């Protein structure tokens, strides 16, 4: 929303002579009320005030709405992580400040888990930064390494914050779409691919970084090693950084494998890999994430961190550390939460896909993540009377929210079955 006063700049107040009595102060108060307010936002946040979540979560907050919109589980986190948090909070010292760049027991646990995954030594104190969620890692990375004059490649569709974060850093986003390769009847996220020549054309001498998100939100694509190699080759050729958002790294379904681009040759030294406790342990409300990379890059993220929020909450970090140890010890065991969670989610994925197909919709079966996109054009809903300015899918979602009320997956099933009956 724009205020008319933004276009005015009033500095006329400065010429008043100050008197020390209350009367003149109150006169001044009413004078400044009527004058244009010069304290508008800084240039760095110009145009970044609107946010899709603010809009849609407000609408979906109505309790009669089935919220399958925002990405947060309504299933419980594993009991042991909640128990660890309760235990941590009972220790006096753990209610006070901890190490700024990450609670020692947590960074040590993270280094162990990721050393195993990546097959390389990771120093807990220099190669890791703990942040406020994956979001905080994206912010720290971009503020540390991106500035005016830089270009950053963003793959569409993209998790919405990438664009404003790049803009807030003064840089220019350069977009490249995943293109749908029609592969027959059942659509898969694997059908959405980058065109290698098109991708190569987006790189130039100003390209500071590319943001990679795998498994991908919203499509659920899990980039293959070959696809990652194409990106890696370009990064090396153009000496570009890679910001790899891998918050859904464990949520990978049968037949798919999550590959870390940082493990490809020549990539460790130019990649920041981002992870999230929220997505790993179904605790989005803990807002803990991490950035892992080489010391010469992570040190700059640490500088941002020490000048933005300094440290993350202690008891949460301690609890997360303990949970990671539990699962680290059973990384060879199928019961490890890193593998049991995706198994649980896979059956939900399949159930949702089936429901949608029965209604006549065409879901794109995700290889990973916990989102599923669906083609609604087959329903042919007439929305011509709604707001002209919005894209069809925005209007469809608003229509769906307002006319197909009720609550989560079970209730969604009821709605969708009713819907099918109505349209039959």
């Amino acid at each position: 929303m724009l205020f008319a006063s933004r276009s005015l700049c009033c500095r006329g107040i400065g010429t008043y002579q100050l008197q020390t009595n209350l009367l003149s102060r109150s006169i001044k108060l009413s004078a400044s009320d009527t004058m244009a307010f010069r304290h508008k936002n800084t240039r760095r946040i110009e145009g970044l005030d609107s946010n899709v979540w603010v809009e849609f979560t407000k609408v979906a907050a109505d309790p009669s709405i089935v919220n399958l919109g925002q990405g947060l589980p309504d299933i419980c986190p594993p009991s042991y992580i909640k128990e660890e948090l309760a235990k941590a909070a009972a220790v006096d010292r753990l209610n006070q400040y901890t190490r700024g760049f990450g609670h020692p027991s947590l960074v040590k646990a993270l280094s162990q888990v990721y050393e195993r995954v990546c097959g390389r030594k990771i120093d807990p104190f220099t190669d890791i930064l703990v942040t406020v969620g994956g979001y905080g890692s994206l912010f720290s990375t971009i503020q540390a390494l991106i500035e005016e004059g830089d270009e950053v490649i963003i793959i569409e569709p993209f998790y919405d914050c990438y664009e404003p974060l790049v803009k807030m850093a003064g840089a220019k986003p350069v977009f490249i779409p995943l293109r749908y390769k029609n592969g027959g009847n059942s659509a898969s996220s694997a059908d959405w691919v980058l065109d290698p020549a098109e991708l190569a054309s987006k790189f130039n001498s100003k390209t500071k970084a590319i943001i990679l998100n795998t498994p991908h939100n919203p499509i659920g694509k899990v980039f293959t090693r070959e696809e990652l190699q194409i990106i890696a080759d370009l990064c090396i050729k153009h000496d570009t950084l890679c910001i790899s958002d891998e918050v859904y790294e464990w949520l990978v379904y049968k037949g798919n494998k999550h590959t870390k681009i940082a493990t490809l040759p020549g990539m460790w030294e130019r990649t920041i890999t981002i992870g999230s406790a929220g997505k790993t342990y179904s605790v989005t409300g803990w807002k803990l994430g991490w950035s892992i990379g080489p010391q010469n890059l992570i040190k700059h993220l640490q500088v941002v961190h020490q000048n933005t929020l300094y440290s993350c909450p202690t008891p949460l970090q301690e609890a997360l550390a303990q949970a990671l140890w539990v699962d680290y010890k059973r990384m060879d065991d199928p019961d490890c939460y890193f593998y049991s969670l995706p198994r649980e989610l896979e059956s939900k994925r399949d159930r949702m896909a089936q429901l949608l197909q029965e209604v006549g919709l065409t879901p794109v079966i995700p290889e990973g993540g916990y989102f599923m996109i669906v083609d609604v054009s087959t329903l042919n809903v007439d929305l011509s009377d709604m707001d002209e300015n919005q894209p069809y899918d925005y209007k469809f979602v608003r229509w769906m929210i307002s006319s197909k009320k009720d609550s989560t997956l079970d209730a969604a099933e009821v709605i969708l079955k009713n819907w099918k009956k109505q349209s039959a």
Partner: protein
Amino acid sequence: MSRPVQARRLEGVDKNIWVEFVKLATTYSTVNLGQGFPDFPPPEFLKEAFSRAVSGEKHMLHQYTRAFGHPPLVKILAQLFGKLLGRDLDPMTNVMVTVGAYQALFCCFQAFIDEGDEVIIIEPFFDCYEPMVKMAGGTPVYIPLRPKAPKEGKLMSSADWQLDPAELASKFSEQTKAIVLNSPNNPLGKVFSRGELELIADLCVKHDALCISDEVYEWLVYDGKEHIRIASLPGMWDRTVIIGSAGKTFSVTGWKVGWTVGSNRLLQHLRTVHQNSVYHCATAAQDAVAQGFQRELEHYGKPDSYFVQLPRELQQKRDQLVQSLVAVGMKPIIPEGTYFLVADISEFKSEVPDVPNSNEPYDSRFAKWMVKNKGVAAIPLSAFYCEAHKDNYNSFIRFCFAKDATLKAADDILQKWKLEKTAP
């Protein structure tokens, strides 16, 4: 890469005193009176609230909450601060929750300080103000509190450190965007009087400057003094952002829950920064803090209110530490507020000689000597001054007295030290 990989905004903000001093304290100290956090537990009612949030039935407390602040928390903050300020506050627009007061400060500078803007900082200052202003492209303009000699035979009080009105007025210019006020002040413990606040307010109104008011120690006020909120002065509500901290209010620095209170015209821009940096704050701790405030509102002004009990206990500890320091030959400045105390150590130049033309200020060398040789960690006052002014007040060190067992241990060491000094 031919140019540095990091962004220019990190220039000059990479150093941080805590990294060095926390390391020293961890390595050498048996008694850490350096960093500001309590060594006693949070109040029982708050621990119970957190336990309920973590292990209770409301498992959605482990998932995302409202980005700008968990509804129960913003509602109670609006209620409490509305009462304290004598205003009707809207929890959704006049309050925003942040990751500690630290992140609130960050949001303020990012939202309002552009390249070329000047920000007035009162010395000695909580060290992060300077790099945060610089990272936002702003220019810090410093003004010192100047000590007036105390009455004959009396110890100095933090009230004796004052701003020179003419000097303060001279610091305001066309470029002045904001002044940072910290009352009660860290490190000195000064509680600005109404007259002093009116001085600042008049200049803010005259020059149409903002006031970023860091009031994290608002409840830690001694000797019957009153903490006055500058936002309640005429003309100030529209131009002030008040910053508070659950860490300091409830002795839970490790929870990292803070907030901003102010007019919507200002807070809307803080929200934009927040949604483009961390977006959400952790849910469970916010829920517990909300319950803590609920309890305090019910007990407000009563003897069993934590806001009454905590300052009473800390005042005793303050007096205890003052005695011990006097006995050993230091000259403490009695703080009117906060849990910090600054002591003059110039008497010790016989024991720890000054080194002329040294790069390091005397108090820093003394603090390092003291932690290595006496095991007591404290912070040199010069750490709270800009580079150019580090030698102006370089014979003082800061102690934190929010300590139980640590304070007793410190007393033992100081007694021993005193005996060593007086031994023939």
